[in-house]
């Protein structure tokens, strides 16, 4: 909403400094996005008449324009296509200054000297229109200063109006807030249009009165033409482009009173009648913008007496009855449409207009006749309108002000204030809220242009706005009945993230929409589809964190960072169980290592490998102190078939790790070994935890024995470790694999694995005989369970 100060001043005698006005608007919730004072910066720009337009000799898209500048002639080079002889345009000669402090120079453009330039509205600081040169009122004398011609010695407040305040989307509404803020009177002149003698009665049939509670039609004979300068200037300053006197007047009233109006060419309607009805299924109509719209039965139409649609109610008219320069009489519509209905149709048709923006937020049903009267008053002045004496006003159920109980005690209880009755009452009155009674018996009747005021709490907000949020104190409420803190699950998630940070991983935050194929690589087909994805190829929600991490790895590799240690902890999504509409959401943690572990020259460099990934997997389990978990080889979809592992705790698999396969790597354009781990956080958490009861460290010396076995490749080292631990019981302190080798002597499919076992008893020094017995027990167990042979 662009509100010129000169217009606001028609309704309230406001002469506060611009900064104070801006601050006041911001305080009451009318956020000022910009303050424009075009007249302050424009120097030397004058109106000039276009005498002739010829093609630029050296450029197809440029023209040479000869101008009558009032005190002489000038020639400028111009790129706009709307310049024609006889047009009056804003002309900035060399030396003139434009908004932004730009000063023009005389300079050649493609070999032709341009003596200044012609300006678009945007170049004059009047909104965003840059589609062509501004067309000034032809009655202005060439040479007139453009500030005078356009009324630019003004201040324009560009206000962002929240959706609950349709009343503030007009100049009167802004003036009302300012009058209240500055304790000034607000005077809205009551319009009175002179009427002619000839009456042209029209019939209005409301077939859907719940959707159109009020419809007023008024007829006038008009003489089409341009608007007078003062009117078109105001529209321009408010950001609208003048079109013709009749259209401009409807826009003027819309901006002034927040009442959208529509003018139909009366002679192009099938008789002097209007039918307001719902659309037939599949009915079509072409709107003013030339688009054919397919309608639905929930759409409200304004039709002529033959039921032919002439407008989509409250949103946009049709071409059939559009006013033109041949129009001699109009039927002016001033109506009140139910807001939600307009919003639904506007949203479905993706069709928005100044009208729909206002109707869908809620206009004033009681303002309908005044707005029509104001339009007729203006048309009489600008289009020589001869107004028919009678209007038809269909308004079967008049809307009255609601009556709302307001308790001063409640105001103070919500706001934490100590306001007295008088302050509460005085704060509401300037907003045209009628108040009676005192204490907890106040009855407030807000005006019908404030659809947002329905309940006591809405009035409490008005009181708060009026007394000012600055006058509310600062206290702190603290819970009496709970202790602040994280849940156990939240703490464990921090533990997992911190563990990965501790070993050098950097946390990522990736977009959880991924390509279905990127999940299929990992054997995941159970996904949740996005109905309106941002990118068509990324059409499902992630069910694994790995595609996101792979994409990050690829991006960074392309930027010269191929050696990466990344992790993410976040939500993944699976399709819901039958009958449910919510996906199954799980929290996963995943890490990805790529490239080379660089240790030269201290140690050799090496590529990341499976063991790095398994280390991270056991790190996660250890971070949460899982008890008795087991790591075993596993063929995992998406991973190298012989280089994957799972971690089980209790009877459940809770994590996977390994080297990724060619499929995922190729999809993301990654080369070289890439290893990963992914775990389900709640599954990890649900696993049995280590007993935290204290165990006294044994004071007795340890004994170490080395054992080497030849076993089949099918036997994982981890299984032998488990067997040794099981067999040797509490005397085992540590079992460590220190050597692995294969040879021809061992034969194909066999390998040698050598372990160091550290033994220690809690209660005594182990004797040689003890150690020998334990050694034999370990050997026997491994030989028997794994078909191993002891290497001598």
């Amino acid at each position: 909403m662009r509100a010129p100060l000169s217009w606001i001043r028609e309704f309230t005698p406001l002469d506060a400094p611009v900064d104070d006005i801006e601050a006041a608007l911001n305080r009451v919730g009318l956020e000022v996005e910009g303050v424009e004072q075009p007249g302050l910066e424009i120097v030397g720009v004058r109106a000039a008449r276009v005498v002739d337009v010829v093609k630029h000799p050296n450029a197809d898209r440029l023209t040479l324009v000869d101008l009558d500048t009032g005190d002489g002639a000038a020639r400028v080079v111009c790129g706009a296509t709307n310049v024609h002889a006889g047009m009056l345009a804003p002309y900035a000669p060399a030396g003139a200054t434009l908004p932004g402090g730009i000063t023009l120079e005389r300079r050649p453009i493609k070999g032709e000297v341009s003596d200044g330039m012609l300006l678009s509205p945007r170049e004059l600081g009047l909104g965003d229109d840059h589609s062509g040169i501004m067309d000034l009122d032809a009655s202005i004398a060439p040479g007139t200063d453009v500030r005078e011609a356009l009324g630019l010695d003004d201040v324009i407040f560009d206000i962002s109006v929240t959706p609950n305040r349709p009343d503030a989307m007009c100049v009167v509404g802004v003036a009302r807030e300012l009058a209240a803020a500055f304790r000034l009177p607000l005077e809205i002149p009551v319009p009175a249009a002179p009427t002619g003698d000839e009456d042209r009665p029209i019939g209005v049939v409301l077939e859907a009165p719940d959707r159109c509670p009020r419809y007023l039609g008024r007829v006038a004979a008009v003489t089409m033409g341009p608007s007078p300068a003062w009117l078109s200037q105001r529209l321009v300053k408010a950001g609208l482009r003048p079109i013709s006197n009749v259209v401009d007047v409807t826009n003027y009233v819309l901006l002034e009173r927040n009442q959208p109006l529509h003018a139909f060419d009366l002679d192009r309607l099938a008789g002097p009648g209007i039918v307001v009805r719902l659309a037939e299924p599949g009915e079509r109509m072409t709107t003013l913008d030339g688009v054919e719209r397919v309608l639905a039965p929930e759409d409200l139409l304004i039709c002529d007496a033959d039921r032919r649609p002439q407008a989509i109610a409250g949103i946009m008219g049709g071409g059939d009855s559009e006013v033109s320069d041949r129009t001699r009489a109009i039927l002016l519509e001033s109506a009140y449409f139910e807001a939600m209905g307009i919003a639904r149709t506007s949203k479905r048709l993706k069709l928005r207009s100044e009208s729909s923006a206002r109707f869908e937020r809620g206009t004033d049903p009681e303002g309908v006749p005044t707005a029509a009267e104001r339009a007729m008053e203006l048309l009489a002045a600008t289009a020589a309108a001869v107004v028919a004496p009678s209007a038809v006003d269909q308004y079967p159920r008049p809307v009255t002000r609601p009556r709302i109980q307001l308790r001063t005690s409640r105001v103070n209880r919500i706001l934490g204030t100590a306001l007295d009755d008088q302050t509460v009452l005085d704060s509401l009155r300037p907003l045209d809220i009628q108040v009676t009674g005192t204490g907890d018996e106040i009855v407030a009747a807000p005006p019908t242009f404030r659809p947002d005021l329905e309940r006591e709490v809405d009035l409490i907000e008005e009181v708060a706005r009026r007394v000012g949020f600055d006058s509310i104190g600062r206290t702190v409420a603290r819970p009496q009945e709970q202790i602040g803190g994280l849940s156990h699950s939240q703490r464990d998630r921090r533990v997992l993230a911190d563990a990965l940070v501790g070993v050098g991983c950097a946390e990522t935050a990736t977009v959880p929409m991924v390509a279905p194929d990127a999940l299929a690589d990992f054997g995941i087909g159970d996904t949740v589809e996005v109905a309106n994805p941002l990118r068509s190829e990324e059409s499902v929600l992630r069910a694994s964190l790995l595609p996101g991490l792979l994409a990050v790895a690829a991006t960074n590799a392309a930027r010269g960072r191929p050696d990466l240690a990344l992790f993410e902890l976040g939500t993944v999504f699976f399709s819901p169980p039958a009958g449910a509409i919510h996906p199954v959401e799980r929290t996963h943690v995943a890490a990805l290592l790529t490239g080379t572990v660089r240790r030269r020259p201290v140690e050799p460099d090496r590529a990341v490998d499976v063991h790095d990934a398994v280390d991270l997997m056991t790190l996660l389990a250890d971070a949460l102190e899982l008890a008795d978990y087991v790591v075993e080889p596993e063929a995992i979809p998406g991973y190298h078939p012989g280089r994957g592992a799972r971690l089980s705790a209790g009877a459940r698999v809770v994590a996977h790790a390994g080297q990724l396969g060619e499929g995922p790597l190729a999809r993301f354009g990654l080369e070289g070994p890439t290893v990963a781990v992914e775990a389900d956080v709640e599954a990890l958490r649900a696993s049995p935890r280590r007993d935290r009861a204290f165990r006294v460290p044994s004071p007795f010396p340890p004994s170490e024995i080395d054992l080497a076995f030849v076993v089949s490749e099918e036997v994982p080292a981890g299984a032998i470790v488990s067997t040794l631990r099981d067999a040797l019981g509490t005397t085992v302190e540590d079992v460590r694999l220190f050597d692995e080798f294969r040879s021809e002597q061992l034969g194909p499919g066999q390998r040698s694995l050598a372990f160091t076992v550290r033994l220690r008893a809690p209660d005594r020094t182990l004797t040689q005989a003890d150690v020998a017995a334990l050694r034999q027990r370990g050997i026997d167990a491994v030989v028997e369970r794994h078909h191993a042979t002891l290497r001598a």
Partner: protein
Amino acid sequence: MTLADEQARLDAALDEAKVAIPNATSTAALDDLERRYTGRRSSAAAAATEGIKDLPADDRPKAGKAVHEFKAAVAALVTARRAEVAAEEAAGAATRDRVDPTIGGHARRRGHLHLVTQTRRELEDIFIGLGYRVAEGPEVEDDWHNFEALNIPPAHPARSMQDTIYVRLGEPEQVMLRTHTSPVQIRTMESQPPPIYVVAPGRTYRNETLDARHSPVFHQLEGLAVDRDITMADLFGTIETFARELFDDPTIRTRFRSDYFPYTEPSAELAVSCVFCHGEGCRVCSHTGWIELGGCGMVDPNVFQAVGIDPEAWQGFAFGFGLERLAMIRYGIDEIRTFVDNDVRFLEQY
């Protein structure tokens, strides 16, 4: 062999030792020399000792004494020189055995939490200090929790303020990626009776193309307090206390301006005095002296009714911050897409 011969050989050996030992340059060479003069076998002292038995009985004690004096003299020479050599060797080790420590190990680098996680934890911890719990909810929400229960009925203009990403579940436009963390308010109030003091941090989604100022994915932290007599002054004071703790600056002021959210009434936009220029005006605050941090307000009675809480018996406040926005302000990050880009140079910076 006479005693005189013995004495002469020992004297000769000692003269030799007096030259050799002070010139020894290493502990090992000293050890060799010591062995050569006084070792048990084939040393000058050993030979002299061996010769004693062949001397006349009267001379033997004198010879023994001579050997003893010889050994003591050599030992004194060795001891004196040993200390010197040790000092020389220690000095030599600094160059001879040195390792360039600036080569460094490269394996153990610290990792990094994402800046959003760091910010989230900071905020969580401040509110935990004020007695709050951390609430959570699903990222895929239904229309009821994301909109309807928050006083945003179908076709409400506020819905067009939030471009929604829907998923293909339930009825069309019934199930969506949550557009804000506010549905966690609803879920919390549905699942526990008041009083309630929670913050709900989390990921939120909008149907916006990623660019400098928009991201389809971002994070919010929502706060909700419901108690018997909680007021707007409590809301303002809580926000101010939080802001002073976050920026570690007791002079921070807060400013509240009327705003509109469907789920709070009254509603306010909240800003803090600029932590960089302290209100003087700078680039960060666009020369206004204030930085907008989020929105807040008193819980709308319609929201209480939606979750079955009596708005006459209970009242509450809610607030919300954008975590990326907060980090952008504090660290001078210009583009929100930085947070989704996951460039390790950014990740490793914090």
